[in-house]
């Protein structure tokens, strides 16, 4: 699951990283956002959105996206 701060919500982490990257001389960097990455093995992927809604993401301030990897792709 990729969990990101909702659009328009203040993202102080993203701001801090953006500034730090600039200070390190990385030019041409913008729209930095810091979110969370939750990875898990699950028998029944259809329940993942429900997990996000109920626990993993805070729907008031975060959006989530579910990326499924097939068994084989999981190393």
């Amino acid at each position, binding site marked *: 699951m990729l969990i990101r701060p909702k659009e*328009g*919500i*203040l993202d102080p982490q993203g701001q801090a990283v953006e500034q730090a990257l600039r200070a390190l001389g990385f030019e041409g960097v913008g729209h930095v956002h810091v979110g969370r990455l939750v990875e898990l093995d699950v028998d029944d992927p259809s329940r993942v959105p429900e997990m996000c809604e109920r626990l993993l993401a805070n729907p*008031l*301030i975060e959006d989530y996206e579910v990326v499924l990897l097939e068994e084989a792709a999981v190393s």
Partner: protein
Amino acid sequence: MSHALAPHRELGLTDSEYEGIVERLGREPNALELAVFSLMWSEHCGYKHSKKLLGQLPTEGPWVLMGPGENAGAVDVGDGLAVAFKVESHNHPSAVEPFQGAATGVGGILRDVFAVGARPIAVLDSLRFGELDSRRSRFLFDWVVKGIGHYGNSIGVPTVGGEVYFEGPYEHNCLVNAMCVGLAPRERLIRSAAAGVGNRVVLLGARTGRDGIGGASVLASAELSDEDASKRPSVQIGDPFEESKLLECCLELLQRGTLASLQDLGAAGLSSSSSEMASKGEVGIDIDVSRVPLREAGMEPFEIMISESQERMLCVVEPERLAELTEVCGRWEVRATEIGTVTDTRRLRVFDGDDEVGDMPVEALVDDCPLYDLEPAEPPEPVYPDPPRRLGDDAQAAETLLALLGSPNVASKRFAFEQYDSIVGSRTLRRPAAADAAVLSLDHDGGSGAIAVSIDCNGRRVACDPYAGAAEAVLECAANLACVGAEPLGLTNCLNFGNPEKPHVAWQLQLAVAGLRDACLALGVPVVGGNVSLYNEGAEGPIYPTPVVGMVGKLPDPETVPGLAFADEGHAIALAGRFAPSLEGSELEKLRGRLARGLPRLDVHAVADSLVGLRAVVRAGGLATVHDVSDGGLACALAECCIAGGIGARVDLAALGGGEAAAFGEGPGGVVIAGPREAVESVEGAVVIGRVGGDSLELAGLLSVPVSELAAAHEGAIPSVVS
């Protein structure tokens, strides 16, 4: 517009209030003006239902430097130093998003204190949730504590004290009140009145986004209900790092004398801060919203005017000092943008570039908010259901004591306070649970002695008896201060109540304010500030009335401050003070599933006088242990002294009449003291009841419980259900 309601009603204004606006403007307001009025005339900003009552509170004293009306009150603590403090609620935002709600609550109260020029040196928190068997209450408690810790810990202001109660009526409406205490050289205190026509209005700090739009009126004056998702506010995110820079920057600007005035942006954002600055300075302000740095594209002027984005301050500066301001802000990496000018129009005019988009008389916004009379009526029926029964009437005394110690209201709050940095700043001489009040040294600041701070209120007792319960909250604070030898200098309060338009809530409010007043008068303590949070109701009715009281006092010599732990084998134990314990309204009655109507008559003067005596004894320095009797009664107070000291005690309560009321009864004014026999006996009116020693707490004829068992009940209760 396809609103179901007329726009003004949608914004919480009545038809007659709307007519009042039209009358004052001499025309219909445009959308921006309506939005601004709706916020300025909300309960939160306008104190529509509470202003008349608050006028009853005593606010004067020779050491008061700033009273109600400023961002924070301030008292003189000697040596050229002032202490500024205030408590404020963030109840509804915390119910919606507990972590950010609590965090931004702390951020907001810090800004109120540095807005008057004081460096924040301590935070205290006062929290109320439903019973811990509720999953939702555990969740809220857990995340509120994390949120408070997050902001305070990150910004480097210690959280030195607080209180938490768990009661059913808070299940659907938790309370999160935060108090901040700040310190300043006396002459550096600054007021928020805008001054000097032609001076510039500068916005400092974070960019403005669509945070909390509609917050102040919609969020703070409507009862929460789950269905109504349309009223869901956009949650405000706190950024303690931004605030830490803003804080240092503002304090440096004040130290240099760069600013003519300073004001935080809280509820209603730019609208309220600019109009209040203008009102106090009897001037006008022009603001150009197109200059406000934005975080989101496409914000409308009205959104910019009412946004509640955090970590922003508004200041007034003479044009010739703008360069200096820019230089200081640059060094602290704080954004500073000139957005307006002080005028002589006494109007708040809003421009979007060259277009005028709003024009309102300042007086109408700030002073003309209609005030309503309460229509109090004593409820014929009990307002609250009895609490769930958890203990039988036939329980043995030992079982009762363990049940009380393990009751979340009495149990150790270590789970919470260990998540708070309580020592940063190097002033903390007594941390949470070390003494009844937190003690903060003034040594590094050029002061002598120390200050003591406490925050208290037992809402259940206020529900039993609004007058006595509220007076007790004040007395409890004063007792906590007396336990460390401090004399109270000032009081702040936050009136958390239900819907004041309901007669029984109005009745609670009226009696509680009378109780606060009488206790303050008896103690000679002025109220220097506070906050009101009304409409705290869930589907099942109002919260317990909860007038949270915060108090600051001064003590001359930190070396003499005792702790609450029993210290040495053989020390004599006595009960001091004016104590008339009763089971009415006690924690034990709660465990037995009963809620009293009415508390025993309270003699506030007698209790106040006894505290003066106790203070003198503590200051004399002979006592090793001092702990006031509070929730759970004398037996719990003794148990707490044993647990803290890791040592037992043998006590006989016969001299107090014995029985359940002596052991578990509650009421103001009782204090456990211990120390060498001569020291204890020299305390006027103290009744020796036992001695320190052994591994158990023994109450003759009642119970004997090993201290380790007491500690397990007391320390284990909250962690075992929350973490």
